[in-house]
Structure formats: C-alpha cells, structure tokens
C-alpha cells in the first residue's frame, strides 16, 4: 500500500511538530525556576532537561502513550474500517496543534494533554459513533485532571510546611538547611526513582521485583544525596549578601536541591507529555502497517525515541527563550518554594505516568504552586489566572473535539 507511507509520513510530521511544541513551551515550566534562581545556567538547564526529558519519555512514557494510542477509542468497532482510525488520529494531531497555536496567539493557558484527549474523544464520538469511545477510561482521565493538581497541591503544602518548621523559622536557618536538605534530596531521588521502577519501566522490558525496586531506588537516592551533600558543604555564607537578604545563603543550599527536583520534573514531564505527540503516531503506524487495528501489538521503542527527540529539539531551539522569559517572571519561586512545588508535581505526574493516565503537567505544577501559596509561602498569587485556567479547561475539550471532527471529515474525503 502506497498510502501507508503517506499516512505514516503525515502522522510523523504532525507528531514531531507537536513534540517540538511541547519541548518549546512546556519544558520551561520544569527548568525556569532553576535558571531564575541561578542554580543552573541556561546552557546547563537545557542539557539537564534534554537528558531527563528524553529519559522520561523513553523509559517511562510507554503507559501513557498506550492509553492515547488505544485506550480511548474502542478498537473492536474499527475492525472493518481501520482507515478511520488513521484519519481520526491525524485529525486529532492537527486539531490539537491548531488549538494550541490559536491559544498561544491569544495568550490563553491551555494544556496539550486536554487538547489531544478532547480531540480524540471528539472524532471518535462524532466521526465513528458514541459507542466508539471507551467512556469509562475517559471518565477516569477527566477525574484525574481534577485530582492531580489537588494532590500536588496537598503534597507541596505539606512539604513546604515542613521546610518552614524545620528550617526557615529556626534561629540558625543555615545550619538547619545544611542538615536537612540532604535528607530532602534523598527523598526526592527516592520517590521519583521508586515510582518509575515500580510502574514505568515495563515497556522497556525491565521488570524488577518489589524488593529489588526499593533497594535500587534507595541506592540511587543515597548516591544523589551524597553528591548533593558535598556541594552543600562547599557553600559558605556571604556576609554582604546576607545583609541585604537574610535567607540568601539558605536559598543557595536549596538551589542544590532544586537541581535534583528540576531533573525530576523534566523526567516526569517527558514521561507524561511525550504521549500527546507520539500516541496518535503510534496508532497510525500500527494500523497503516498491519491494516488492522491491532490492540495487542506492542509499542515500538523507536516511536518513543522520536517523541523524546522532538521534545529535545523544541527545547533546544525555542525553549531556551521561553525558559529565560519565564525565569524572570517567577522570581517569587525561590529555591525553597520551587523545590516543594516541583517535587510534589513530579511525584504526582510520575505516578500518573506509571498508571498510564495522561494528565496536564502544567496544571499539576500550578496546583503545587498554589499549595505552597496556601502554606503562606508565596507573596502574591493572581487568582484571576486560576479562574482563566478553569475556563480554559471547560473550553479546550469541546474546542479540540470540534476541530478534530472538522479535520476528520476533511481527511476522510481527501485521503486515499
């Protein structure tokens, strides 16, 4: 079939474009705090992000990609007309991309995940039939969109509260910081590694026993904590800077921790968002190749590699500007606050990725930041933006669906 190459080519092109967009816009959220607080230079941030986004996508992105690829649309109904799935997935990619483009032109805060899921549900429900959508799965996904920011908020709230009690309100915060931050580093490394090992690595063929997972996670975490400890010991108070801002040196200690959580965020983001670009592509590939909607066929690793690569390219080309811009605006997110938010968000996202649920990484991070704000950790939060985010939730899904339906019918007519 000549057509299969056209389909795969189109899907790859759209998918790569989506991946590029994700790298360009979303990754900044993971790295901006580290750059803004000078824990990392932009070059270092890009390097760190590139490595960990890629690792996250390849090592832990499989479950969510599977969900996008075959978890939303009921494969059985398409046995007699597999090309509909191809048109639909292509349409979804186009729809999501278009909606994101419109949104960024207007400065609306929309989520890539919401867009693509809304688009897929849209084309399936209207283009094929209501029964074509696996509504139970969709319901789970939508519920998780509400639960994930709340969970991240709660975790961030607790983490920041502990930081205040243990370090910031003490007589000698610097000594306390040097004592406790390595412990936080351990927990950050442990949690993210453990969740990934327990849930995420099956698609890479790595299946460790429970005990081994815990042991390995502990080992890795201890290593990271030791490295962090060494860096922290080197930090000496700068009397002049302390004059201007008492917590200056304490924040430098937390900056070391921020590097670890930034890696975690990049990893988590890659694991969940790569699916937005690659899930539809994977679906198109498996149908175009075999001619049947094979629900059983495995997800090829190289598809994840393409997704991860696209994200990295987007990050390296346009993402650096976004990181710089965002970094300047979020100066209120000092390392002590930023780490709490990022660790909470990263943990929540990685759990979702492991369970195969596509959530909005940005919304989760915003939820975490609000959690820190509730612990009285942030000077000023603009609630109007929170309002706008709710509105964008409500609008994005129908918008994505609507666009997907239009594109679906266009492609159905145009393509062989």
């Amino acid at each position: 079939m000549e057509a299969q190459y056209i389909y795969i080519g189109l899907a790859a092109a759209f998918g790569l474009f989506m991946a590029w967009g994700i790298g360009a816009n979303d990754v900044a959220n993971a790295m901006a705090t580290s750059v803004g607080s000078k824990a990392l230079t932009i070059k270092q941030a890009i390097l760190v992000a590139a490595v960990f986004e890629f690792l996250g996508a390849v090592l832990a992105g499989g479950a969510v990609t599977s969900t996008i690829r075959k978890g939303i649309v009921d494969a059985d109904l398409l046995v007699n007309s597999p090309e509909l799935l191809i048109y639909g997935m292509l349409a979804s990619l186009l729809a999501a991309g278009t909606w994101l483009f419109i949104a960024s032109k207007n400065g609306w805060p929309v989520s890539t995940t919401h867009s693509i899921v809304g688009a897929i549900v849209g084309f399936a429900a209207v283009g094929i039939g209501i029964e074509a959508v696996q509504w139970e799965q969709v319901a789970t996904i939508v519920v998780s969109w509400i639960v994930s920011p709340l969970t991240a908020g709660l975790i961030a709230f607790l983490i920041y509260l502990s930081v205040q009690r243990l370090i910031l309100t003490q007589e000698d915060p610097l000594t306390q910081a040097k004592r406790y931050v390595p412990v936080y580093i351990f927990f950050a490394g442990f949690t993210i590694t453990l969740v990934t090992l327990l849930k995420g690595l099956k698609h890479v063929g790595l299946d460790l026993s429970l005990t081994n997972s815990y042991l390995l996670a502990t080992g890795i975490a201890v290593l990271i904590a030791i490295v962090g400890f060494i860096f922290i010991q080197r930090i000496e108070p700068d009397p002049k800077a302390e004059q201007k801002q008492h917590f200056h040196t304490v924040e430098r200690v937390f900056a070391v921790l921020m590097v670890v959580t930034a890696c975690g965020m990049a990893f988590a983001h890659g694991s969940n968002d790569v699916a937005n670009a690659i899930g539809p592509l994977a679906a198109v590939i498996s149908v175009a190749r075999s001619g049947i909607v094979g629900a059983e066929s495995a997800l090829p690793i190289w598809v994840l590699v393409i997704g991860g690569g696209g994200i990295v390219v987007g990050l390296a080309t346009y993402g650096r500007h976004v990181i710089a811009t965002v970094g300047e605006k979020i100066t209120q997110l000092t390392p002590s606050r930023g780490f709490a938010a990022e660790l909470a968000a990263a943990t929540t996202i990685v759990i979702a990725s492991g369970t195969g649920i596509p959530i909005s990484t940005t919304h989760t991070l915003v939820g975490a930041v609000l959690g820190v704000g509730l612990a009285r950790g942030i000077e000023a939060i603009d609630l109007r933006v929170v309002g706008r985010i709710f509105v964008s939730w409500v609008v994005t899904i129908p918008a994505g669906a609507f666009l997907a339906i239009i594109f679906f019918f266009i492609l159905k007519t145009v393509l062989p």
Partner: protein
Amino acid sequence: MGNMLANIFGTSPVQPLVNHVHISYKCVRELDGFFVAVIKGDWDSAVEYRNRITGFEHEADDLKKEIRLHLPKSLFMPVPREDLLELLLVQDKMANRAKDVSGIVLGRKMHIPPVIAAEFQEFVKRNVDASKQARKSVRELDELFTSGFRGAEVSLVESLLEELDAIETDTDDRQAALRASLFEIENEIAPVDVMFLYQVIELIGEIADMAERVGRRLELLLSH
C-alpha cells in the same frame, strides 16, 4: 502560551513597600540638615533642603499610587491586602509631615530662638531616628514573608518594634521638655511666631507618631 506558571504570580508588593519606606525615610532625614541651615539663618541652603524634601515626598506619592494599582482584590497573599495598604498609608505620612514642617518654616522664614536651638535640633534628630527605625523594621518584611510570619524572624522584628516604641516615648518626653522651654521665653517673642513655633514642634513630633504607627501596623501583620 500565555505561560500559566509565569502568570500565576501577581506583582509582589513586598519590595515596592520596602522601597517606599526607604524614600519616606530619606525625605524625613533631610530635616536634620534643613534645621541646621534654618538655625544658622542660611535660607539658600534651606531652600535646597526643602526642594529635596519635596522631591522625595512626590516620589513617595508616585510609588504609593503604583503599589495601590498593583494590589487588586484578586491577589491572594499570606496577609490581608487592607493591612498592607494601611501600612503604606502611614509610611507615606512620615514624608508628608516632613514636607509640611519644612513648608511652614521656610514660608515664614521662622526664627528658632537660640536658647532652645540645641534642644530643638536634638528633638528633630530623635524624630528622624524614629523614622529610621521604622524603615529598619519594614525592611524585614521580605524575611517575614519567607518564614511565613513565624519563628525566629518574628522575635527579631518584635525587638526592633520595641526599640521603636522606646524612641517614640523619648520624643514624647523631649517634646514636653521643649514646649516647657519655649513656655519660659514665650513672652519675649512675637505672639504669632510663638504659636507657629508650638505648631511646628507638634508637627515634628507627629513624624515619630507616624513611625510608631508603622510599627503597630507591622505588629498587626505579625499577629496573623
């Protein structure tokens, strides 16, 4: 993408508030030199001081308006918005008093009786000290926000505010003593001039009063 993360942060009022109290203090501080010139009878220098005072007071007013503009009701902060606005108001009043005092003294080319000149200057200096202590206290706002208005930082600020109270009480005592000294010699001076002298003393004393009110506003923030 109208970056969500970036936009979630409103303009923090903390640094602008700290900047504002600094400008207010700079305005009050000029009174030291102003009165040295007045007592010497050097009206040219006095005019220069007066111009600087007016300049700082206008700067403070502009910054005050800016801050108010950027504190919409939709801003979620660890402390009530009204408390911060009240703090801003009393900070600003320190500068206003300084401007009022210098205006009256310059306008009448007031003569400070040599007998009370030294006592008078000490009184002015003490009020400037009060303003300085208020500024020192407000500067801790940043750290207060970081520590969530809890713990060691609160103790530090409370001791600063105790000192502020002590300075204000001192100015009250000095004001009473100065009025007594003036009373001794008031019959030797033209009645209208005497009345204005009393008024000026009272206005200067209000600077320390405003400084103490700044301290009280800070205490209110601490009590949340």
